[in-house]
């Protein structure tokens, strides 16, 4: 009997955006480890993810999990040109901040701070939200994430011009688009299949 919702009566959720390490607890039962097949392992992509309740829950549909993960990796980790890694992470953190995903924002704010070596504007984004003044280039990337996250979607040719003015070339603009778009995927899974917990 796996079709039950898991409730944590004494659970204390984080109540603020943070760069600290957080945990995450699933509201549905992850795939039991003894039921893992090669198809599930392929969906997990990284064997270490078998230790994650989030990925083991998503492993119940391994085909879409594997494709999701491989899409994610190329958008964020492909080192060839385009938007620097720190700013791809900024697009993820800004999207997560606007959608309200405290867990996703924590992970990608940490990465944005680490790769940019400037934690101050990242913390400002977390504390003040997507209207925080982070400097012209980061403001443009955050504004693009917002225009591509809020419904109705407002991202248009003027958004492209603003990114160009901020110094992004076409591939970097495409990376910014994909970073924000991907976190509209990730946030919706993380926010609705379980709950974050203090690390």
């Amino acid at each position, binding site marked *: 009997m796996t079709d039950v919702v898991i409730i944590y009566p004494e659970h204390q959720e984080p109540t603020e955006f943070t760069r600290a390490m957080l945990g995450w607890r699933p509201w549905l039962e992850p795939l039991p480890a003894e039921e893992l097949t090669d198809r599930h392992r392929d969906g997990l992509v990284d064997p270490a993810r078998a230790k994650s309740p989030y990925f083991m829950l998503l492993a119940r549909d391994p085909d*879409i999990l594997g494709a*999701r993960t491989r899409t994610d990796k*190329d958008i964020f980790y492909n080192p060839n040109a385009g938007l620097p890694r720190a700013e791809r992470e900024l697009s993820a953190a800004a999207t997560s901040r606007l959608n309200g995903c405290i867990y996703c924002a924590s992970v990608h704010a940490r990465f944005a701070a680490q790769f940019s070596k400037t934690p101050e504007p990242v913390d400002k984004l977390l504390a003040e939200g997507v209207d925080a003044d982070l400097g012209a280039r980061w403001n443009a990337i955050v504004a693009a994430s917002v225009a*591509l996250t809020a419904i109705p*979607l407002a991202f*248009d040719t003027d958004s492209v011009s603003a990114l160009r003015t901020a110094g992004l070339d076409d591939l970097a603009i*495409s990376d910014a688009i994909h970073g924000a778009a991907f976190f509209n995927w990730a946030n*919706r899974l993380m926010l609705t299949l379980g709950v974050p917990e203090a690390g």
Partner: protein
Amino acid sequence: MSASVPDVIDRLVGIAPGSRLDLIRAQRQQARDNAQTSYLSLFHPDSTAEMSLSERNAVAMFVAGLHRQADIAAFYAEALGDAALAAAVADAVAAGSGSGPYGHYPAGPLSAEDVEGPVYTAPAALGRRLAAALTHAHLLVFHPRDAAPPALQALIDAGWSTTGIVTLSQLIAFISFQVRVIVGLRALAANPGS
């Protein structure tokens, strides 16, 4: 899954081979291929035991419609291939239309950022499973931070399995990604710069 299905993002953006956008996408070919593999795994799945093709296309049409992307909604409506059901989903889109994101944070300092908005319930005439799925899709599209265990219990009560809820959640979230890539790349295509 079928390798012969044309790249759906290219098709919906209108990207021709050799065009400027084709060359941009080719520099992130793994992301491009796996966005297509994601589409295929959801809409040309090996198994429909936990979620039917009709449910998949109806939910996708609804999610695209809530994003006000009529042509993307029409793409999934055509795949749905059921004019009566497509009309019912179109009515649901009209009833559920709104702006987002909104919702509530855990009580604390972020409560000052809580934004109120409508809670949508899809009509029971769609059938228990699909009505529950569209109700859940509206939550995920507009106010995912309001999600809580009762939303998942409602799906289980309507006949969704745990695995089916994972697939449903992935599908709603994937369409949320796909429409944004399409909107973004269209804008990039329409603005080639100087």
